């Protein structure tokens, strides 16, 4: 018995929304970065699920692109977190904001 693809889509939608909520409410800059990665992984699930529906492999190829790009983005993001921590000794979003409207 296999699980219908709609369930996977629902899961990926849920993870996407959780990631969006995480970006807006988390206070730790590393947690915010993790939330963006969570969203990209939600997209991966959606692609594989749609491949199940369409009997295709193009979506799974796209997953490789997303994985690579997510890795690059995480590398740059962690580098910036390191730089910010060195300059301010803090990872709290609210204490860090200097640029204002």
């Amino acid at each position, binding site marked *: 018995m296999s699980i219908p693809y709609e369930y996977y*889509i629902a899961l*990926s939608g849920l993870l*996407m929304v959780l*990631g*969006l909520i995480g*970006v807006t409410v988390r206070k730790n*800059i590393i947690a*915010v*970065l993790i939330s*963006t990665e969570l*969203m*990209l992984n*939600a*997209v991966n699930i*959606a*692609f594989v*699920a*749609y491949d199940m*529906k*369409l009997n*295709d492999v*193009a*979506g799974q*190829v*796209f997953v490789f*692109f*997303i994985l690579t*790009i997510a890795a*690059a*983005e995480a590398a*740059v*993001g962690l*580098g*910036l*977190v390191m*730089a*910010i921590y060195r*300059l*301010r000794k803090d990872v709290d979003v609210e204490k*860090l*904001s*200097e*640029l204002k*409207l």
Partner: protein
Amino acid sequence: MSVIEQLVSGLGLPNFNVLIPEIILLLTAFAVFILEMFSKNRRVISAFSITGLLISGIYILVIILGILKLILSPITLREASANPFYSYILNNYLENFVTLYGLYVVDLFSLVFKLFLIIGTIFVLIHIRPYAEAKGSYYGEYYYLILFSLFGMFIMVSSPNLISFYVGLELMSISLYVLIGLYRKDYRSKEGAYKYLIIGGTGTAIVSYAIALLYGRTGTFDFREIAQTLIASNTVDVGLIGGLILLLVGLALKASAVPFHQWAPDAYEGAPTPVTAFLAVPSKIATYAIILRVVVEAFPSLTESWGFAWALFAAASMIFGNLVALRQKSVKRMLAYSSIAHTGYITAALAAPTGMGFAALAFYSIVYLFMGAGAFLLLASLEKNEGWNNTLEDFKGLAKKDPVSALLMLIFMFSLLGIPPTVGFFGKLGVFLALIGYNVWWLAVILVVTSIISAGYYLRVVANMYMYEPSFKGKINVSLVEKLSLGVLAVIVLILGIYPTQIWTLTTTISSLLMAGVGR
């Protein structure tokens, strides 16, 4: 037969002739990457990357002129195939221009945008070394990161497919995240880069979710095949609507349209000023170009929906950008809000999904290159002086201390505002006429009213420069090379403002080719 030979005989070799500018650009970037490790001579690195860009740009210019000659003037097919140059263009750019197995398209649209992206990048590269040396934050990484980012923009403007569009977008954005953070041990630069990374990363996730939804609905990544599937099925369901909305939101976020603009002012202010120019002008222009291509090629059956969505984004950007720019003390931040407002003016043209509207979008984004780059790069040159903070206060009496810089600033400000003998006027006029022609009166009225509001802050800079006694204590020194390159930009702004016919013909041609390609 080896495996590779079998693969090649099955698929056929892609047409590499059309990729020559990209190959030159990429080779330059790698050569700069290696040169930067071994050579300490900064002028050599700078001159080398500018030369690579020039060669690539001249190649593209020659091809564009050849294509225009073939399309616009009555040369018969036989005459064309007799001439080696024309037959080269005919074979490569008018027939086999989709290459790399349908993932890359080199048509007139992408060539024109590539040419202007290269021009903008050359001006940024001229200004980056003096600025970085004066500020004590010289890194050789600037050069190859800018070149890689430019390569991402090239992929973006010539993508006929959601895969290459996505890869190009990310190559551009990730290089930009690093570039913004590359400013001494300055905290604000890191904060701006981090904000852009988080909000841009969210945008990436949203765009890729939109691609997933569209793929699930249509089963393909190709713009034209998506359009055909949508026209054939002719039903609108949740997957399609969700995919389109998320795609538009993600693109609006990358183009910094209100309400997704929060990253823009911070990233612009934190970045080293020449990088701000690169971020505000070439990267934005590539984004506008891909927005135009995606909506026109993939969703021709849903013009009303995306036209209305862009009308809302544009109205919000124009109103918010101009009103907030009024209360800024720092000219750099003011120009950041003005660039949000310009996103509004440019995308407003999409509310009129006609040939006129698309031509107006292309025209305005091309001419915005000259005035936007000019304004930001002039700030970069002034900022080199000790104690200059880019505040409105600093600009008081600039005309007495450095009349040439003040005059250049005056030209760029008038052009951004849209006062006649400058080209900004024709940009706004094109968008305005397109909106009137499609009966979107409310947006046309917002465009005019917000342009009048914007006089409040552009003219304040001019008034400060010419009507006050100097308040800035230090010396103002802008080097001759910088004055020359800024002068070239100002002269282009003035010449195009008096005689915009050439660029207008070019953009009308690419918009009609884009429209003609939709039915194919």
